[in-house]
């Protein structure tokens, strides 16, 4: 899912968020560390374009997840992501360090079995608001004399912020 969103130039986040004169973001990304044993964080992030609010960017990022949950991904996208992964599995062997790191992980063997339907199902099951944390970093004045904007009150639990 992170590769479909942000795995190559022209992937979904590029097309939907960072292109065109009316783009919502100057930069947008998605990543997920799937090698840990426990639950891992899936991160969506971005920098709003001039004149766009962080809220608009947040909504645009959420919409891309919702789109996958609603409509799934195409077979072409799935095959593209798999082609990249298999090539990267060869490239990784170029580094001794990576070889050491990879010992004991056999994830690449499971990848060719991933289906478009599974990606859609994951988008539906794991991306609810009850497991979501949202952070906005706002610009601060660099001059010590100017008053700083108060930090956004941190809330935890239900709600989106």
């Amino acid at each position: 899912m992170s590769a479909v969103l942000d795995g190559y130039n022209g992937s979904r986040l590029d097309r939907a968020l960072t292109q065109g004169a009316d783009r919502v973001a100057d930069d947008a990304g998605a990543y997920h560390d799937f090698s840990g044993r426990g639950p891992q964080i899936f991160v969506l992030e971005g920098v709003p374009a001039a004149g766009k609010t962080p809220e608009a960017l947040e909504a645009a990022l959420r919409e891309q997840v919702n789109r996958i949950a609603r409509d799934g991904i195409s077979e072409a996208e799935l095959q593209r992501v798999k082609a990249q992964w298999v090539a990267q599995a060869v490239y990784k062997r170029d580094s001794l360090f990576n070889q050491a790191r990879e010992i004991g992980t056999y994830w690449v063997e499971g990848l060719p079995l991933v289906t478009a339907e599974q990606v859609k199902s994951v988008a539906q099951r794991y991306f609810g608001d009850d497991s979501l944390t949202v952070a906005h970093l706002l610009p601060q004045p660099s001059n010590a004399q100017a008053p700083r904007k108060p930090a956004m009150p941190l809330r935890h639990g239900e709600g989106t912020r």
Partner: protein
Amino acid sequence: MKATHKILRRLALVAGLLSASSLWAALPIQHWTAANGARIYLVESPSLPMVDIQIDFDAGSRRDPTGQAGLASATAGMLSKGIAAQGNQPALDENALGEAWADLGALFSASAGSDRLSLFLRTLTVPDLLEGAIRLAARQLAQPSFPAAIWAIERDRTVAALKEAYTRPGTVAQRRFAAAVHGRHPYGNEANEASLNAIQVADMRAFHARFLDSCRARVSVVGALNRAQAEQRVLQLLAGLPASKPCPALPAVAEVPALTQAQTLRVPFDSAQAHVLMGQPGYKRNDPDFFALTVGNYILGGGGFVSRLTEQVREKRGLSYSVYSYFAPGLHAGPFAVGLQTRPDQADQALQVAREVVRTFVAEGPTEAELKAAKDNLIGSFPLRLDSNRKLLDNLSNMAWHQLPLDYLDTWTQAVDRVTVQDIRAAFQRKLQPERMVTVMVGAKP
């Protein structure tokens, strides 16, 4: 789609058969000049079904026209933003191009440093993928469409990133330092909003047409290709570029002038840590003092926790987490710099200590014990500089660019071992003038 399935199956097979070892016993570097004038450097590395290719042109930022700092980088960046139609080959926009590379499982990138504009291709050598990657790279190299609407957006994004970078004291210090050390030389001339606004796509086309000529290409190849295959693929890659005969010489770029006096810039900045940089123009990469300066700088401030600067500034006085020194030699005398971060009210004290360390080192050189430890580390860790195709490619392209002898890597450890205390002292006295350095302090509070 069917083709992709087939490729996937074949690759899974290949991946299963690979041995884990790709270490080098010796470095057989092959070098020749192709008919189009390109100088080719090859290391055959058959253990993995992949190849890395780097093409370097004399089109780095030192070739940016006055008032258009950033043109080389912008031109390199825009190479990925679309290719024009030619013959029966359709135009591809940036998204189609991104998808095509992803479908091939290959990587292609272009970037500009201060000396070179570099193109990097990494692809599998499975025949149809290799063919597809070389064809696509060749088109991207020769027929970029430089779409004006995309450049307008890229420019906005670059300006936004610059503004963001300037909220960080480290960036401000680096910029001021580069400008003060290099004066009007292009090495000190970094892109800003005004210079980016002065760049149009027509300038990129002209820059591309002028500087990207096969006759000046330096091509480094590391991977599962033999000499005949490498030659064929390199010619294919460069086929769409001009191959001028004779190769027109490019205008010489002036050298970095030496500093005439000491200068200290104090830049107010409200930051938790003050950033301090001190230095001067260093030396050119082809300087015969290269090894003495490399070993000497390891002792002075390049060797991390065992360097003199770390010992004096951090270990003995606790003034800084990090303090370092480096040389960045290129075709011209890139900077020598000492850098540290410290609490704002300690910046002057930390600077005094760092200055004293540099002064003493230039006057006296290292001790025999320091020299021995530095050599042990540099020679002992040398294999780690070559333990992947990617690192080999970096070394090979460096040799190609600076026209280093073909046995450069084979004799590297011997050259380090030959350096003496006297060599280091003499080299540092030739290159560094502690009484005429630039100092930049950002966020220091006296």
